[in-house]
């Protein structure tokens, strides 16, 4: 939670919110749900870059979201579990390439 309330995070969130208003105003033709995922991707990337988080952090979040989605799907909340799965997928989109970059770095330092 500290990330959400930190100053840098707040400024970052403001930037993202500003971006989203620009998207809405200039009719970029994206459905609202699509915009939400793009913003989430930017937000996730922002957190990783600003707070210098490793891929392990992302993967752990991914697994938490995944287990959460499984639990929700057990109660037949199909759409809610799919939404969380998509958030988890965004986590994978950030964390897997990040793991690759970390691997390259480790190779170079060997």
């Amino acid at each position, binding site marked *: 939670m500290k990330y959400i309330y930190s100053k840098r995070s707040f400024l970052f969130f403001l930037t993202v919110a500003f971006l989203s208003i620009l998207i*809405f105003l200039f*009719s970029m033709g994206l459905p609202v749900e*699509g915009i939400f995922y793009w913003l989430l991707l930017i937000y996730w990337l922002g957190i990783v870059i600003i707070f210098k988080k490793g891929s392990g952090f992302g993967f752990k979040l991914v697994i938490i979201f*995944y287990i959460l*989605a499984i639990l929700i*799907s057990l109660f037949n909340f199909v759409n809610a*579990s*799919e939404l969380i799965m998509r958030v988890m997928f965004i986590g994978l989109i950030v964390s897997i390439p990040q793991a*690759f970059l970390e691997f390259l770095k480790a190779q170079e330092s060997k």
Partner: protein
Amino acid sequence: MIQKIYKHLNILIVLISAFVLVSIWFKNGNIMGAGESGLPFYDFNIEYELQKTAWFKHALGGPTSVIIASTPSYFVLKNLQNLGIPAFLMQAAFFWICLVVSGISIYKLCKELFPEINERFLLLSVFFYWFNPISLVNVWNRFLNNYFLFFAFLPLSLYFFIRGIKTGSYNYCVIFVIISSFFSYVYSSMAFNILLWYTIFFAAIFYITVQKNIKHKIFVLVYFLTFFSLWVLTNLWWITQILGYISSPTFSAATQSFFTNAGNFEGFSTISEKLGRITDILAFRHSSFYMDSKLAWFEIYNLAFIKLLNLLISLVVLMGILLGRKRSGVVFLSLYSLVALFLIKGNNFPFGELISWLFINIPAYQLFRNPFEKFGFLLVLGFTPLFVYGAYSLTNLLKRNSLVYLTCALVIIIIWGFPFWTGLVFTTNFTPMNDPYVKYEVVVPPEYKQASKWLLSQPGDFKLIVLPLFEEGVTYNWEKGFNGIDLTNQVLPVQSVSFNTTVPFYYDVASDIQKVFLENDKFYPLMNALNAKYVLVREDINWQQRKMINPQKITEVLEKRALNGEFKKVATFGKLTFWENLHYKPSEIYSANNLAVISPKPLAGDITATDSASVYLSEQAGQYISGEESISKIYPEKRLIIIEFNQERYASQHIFPYVSTYPDSKKYPLVLIKEKIQKLFIADLRKKIDFELQLLGKRLKESDKEANDKNSKLLFASLEKYFEIIEDYKKLYKEYFSSVPQSQKEDVQLQQAEIFYKHILILSDLEKAYKENPQVVLRITSHITELKKILADLEIYPHNELFISESFPLKTRLIYQYQIQSEGEYKLLIKDQNILRNFQINNNQMFIQINERLESIVPQWTEGGFLYLGTHFLKKGENEISFNSFESKNLVKGSDFDMKATASEFVKRLPIDNLITDRKYDISFNYLIKKGNGPVVSLYNDNSIPLGNEKTPEALIEIRPDYYDFDKKYFGFSTGNLYGATSSDLVFILRPWKSCGNFLLPDQEWCKDNRRSISFDRQSEVEINNVLVTEQFTETPYLEKVESPAQQSKPPEIRYIKIDNTKYEIAVKNAGENFVLILSQLYDAGWSLKNQNGERVGQGPFLANVFSNGWIVNQPGSYRLILEYEPQNRLETTAKISAVILAALVFWLLWNKKESLFKK
């Protein structure tokens, strides 16, 4: 020895498991087949003959293209079959090889990437790869041979590539290329070629990036390029065939005629939405496969517990990624799987926009219209080693070795494996494959072998026409039957026209053959044009399930035609009966001088000439001969319909929605912003158009209000906005209309015409409101004119203002648009024997509008069954001819009756007279519900699927009582096309009013027992009046030039020798100045006519006789010609290059092996 066996125990388990599986699947000694694959294992000789050359000898022929890649496999299989090996054993061996290769390859790949993993974990990879539910649906249940091979070949290729890089040995590269020649069947799908090279390219890029040393980076690059170049060279023979096909006019005709980008994209989006949910993908679920299934075993996989287990398997994969993210193998596979996951979900959220962009802008991406099916291969390949690694890592982490392993093994081998160990994986929803005792097993009746033998004993090179004929799918009622593509060309050794499909030119013939057979006076002219000697009537098909015509009706027509000396029954084999065309003249290749040019192109029904020297040409081909003057018949390019729509203003909410804020309100600018934002969030094209139409209706309502307030400034402001929206609408509608299938275009045009008809009514009323102000009237009139022009350009309205008067009211006005090359007098004719049966055509005067003038004519019947609608002067260019549709007779008797249902249901059947197959009918009646329920209205056709003693009703409509308006009401609907039906009853059913539930509301279950609830039933009573069943007028009036073209001289005598499917030697004797040479194979620009020196002769090929190839030859005298399909030359040359390179590689490999032995 025991140690050696133990060392290879896993391989032994793979071999034995594969053997056990195929033994279970083929225990009955039958071959299997389903769906699109047909029955290639039935007779490899036929299969090989079909595709051994660049010309595919299937139906009317066509380019073999990418399918040629499977020819070497069929050559080997054919020779094995000729040694006497039973077909089922060969199919079992094929499956065993696929299982073993896929199993060992994935095992080796896992070992290569994760050498430290325990052997028993590695074994899990084999069963994971075989039995996972994605492969179950996409590979095993799909049952396509090239899918099986790709499933085996993909891990093998990746293994060889990675192994080669890791060992630095080019031997693996060479072995891959040699093995890939044995797997050439894989390449018969372009999508698989792309996926294969995407996988290897992905691995190459990864290993180039992760290599530290520049030398190693260069090695990987060179290795990849060698891998690719050798593959290209050894596969040059089929690659050049594809490239040739893609660049040919045939390919562009195929893609433009039946597929549109918008249509493909719509299909892609629908599939993505259905199958692209991440929850389903990670649970390995093809959701519609399991959800729509009616089979009991599928239900197991719909259980929440099983879904949970599947999701947990993916959790193991994710844990593998988390725990092994510092390992090269895990990083590579997780990147590869991430891309696969991104692609498999199609354009679903998140980031589906990127995939949509790729789909729209990269034509090749349209090969992946079903992303789940194609990218599923990649996901499974990526997930299998990750799962094994995850399970291994978890075991180490939890330190409870056996529990994790046993749980994983139980899920994969028992739960996932259940349909495989039982053979149920080869069952599906459709009969007869839904029977677990039949599965995909097929037993072709012996009469097919007898029929084949008889056909081969008949002299000449002829084709068959097989009736009844409908679409590609056929269900055979055999002991162990088949449900899938039509099998005739695979089970009989003769080219057969037995199905209809969307292949250019073939479709034009096949879609009309049955109609011509049933309706034309003579069928043999069309048969002769097709070089068809026999009609085969098949009674072994489930014609009702496939909405085909009853085979007995075909036999009845043939018996009638036999009385006229047109046909003769010549052979019967079980349920197959052959009828000989008694006017047959061999016409695989023939010469013609009697030319009929038809604009824009002839239809199959036009081929009516009884002499053997006639040819029918399209307007385009006709220009080779003698220009526009020779055109004998002109069909309309388009038909528009405008009907007398309900004139009530603002009647429909969807045309004129409610408006609460008008332009004079201060809130109005906000309304406009709200509309813009609303529009922004509509992604679907059709919904966007509907929204635009609603906005147009709103602007008109606003205009109307301003006109009433006499505020002309705001009136014109609203009209300006109306036309701004029209500009947007124009773009969207054009895009949408191009994606609408031809069969639905008329319905779409009619819907739009209704909306704009009402718009024009409102605009005309505005004119009236300002009649005292001519300036305003003039502006409104110019707006109406502008709107009509836009509508004409969009093919919604005619170009010419329609005449409407009391003597010529607008009822159902049919507007035909003709393109005329030269002005002059033209006869307007309709040819149809049935028109008199169902339409009231008398000798009264009728009006016909020709462009901007009105003419009055008296319809007359002429010789040969033509309805003559006068001779008219037409200008060069586009001409519009319009008249009101002929009034159809009422096809039912007894149109007024009362219905009363007290204790049981009341049924009233009204047989429909003169029902003609493949037509549409309008049904309407008035009804008054006096008591209880409303009637259920349906059609019982003769080809509806039997349901007990009855039939499954078609077009079932239940009319419910209205609890507010108790008056008499009108009800009407259109039947759509009654495919294959030759008789039908309109059935009204009235059921007693069930009031049990009303009394016993808390106990609805109690009421389900009819014996108890009957005492609560009350009488239903309905009055029906004025039942009308009328046929829709679908005949096409055509124009005929008053002067008839001059007859030509006698054509030369033609003899030919067929060298093979792609080459004919022709001897021409006594040719005059010029003649047309016809080849009765499907039109393809690859055919070329040459003299003996190899120089091209004549002009052509052009499209002749609707489907075939024609050349105009202007060389008098007697001489020899060669007719050949040019891609075959390319095939032969490139096959030699590929063979030499392959031989060199084998030699190199053996030499290397020898060298290394010596070194040892």
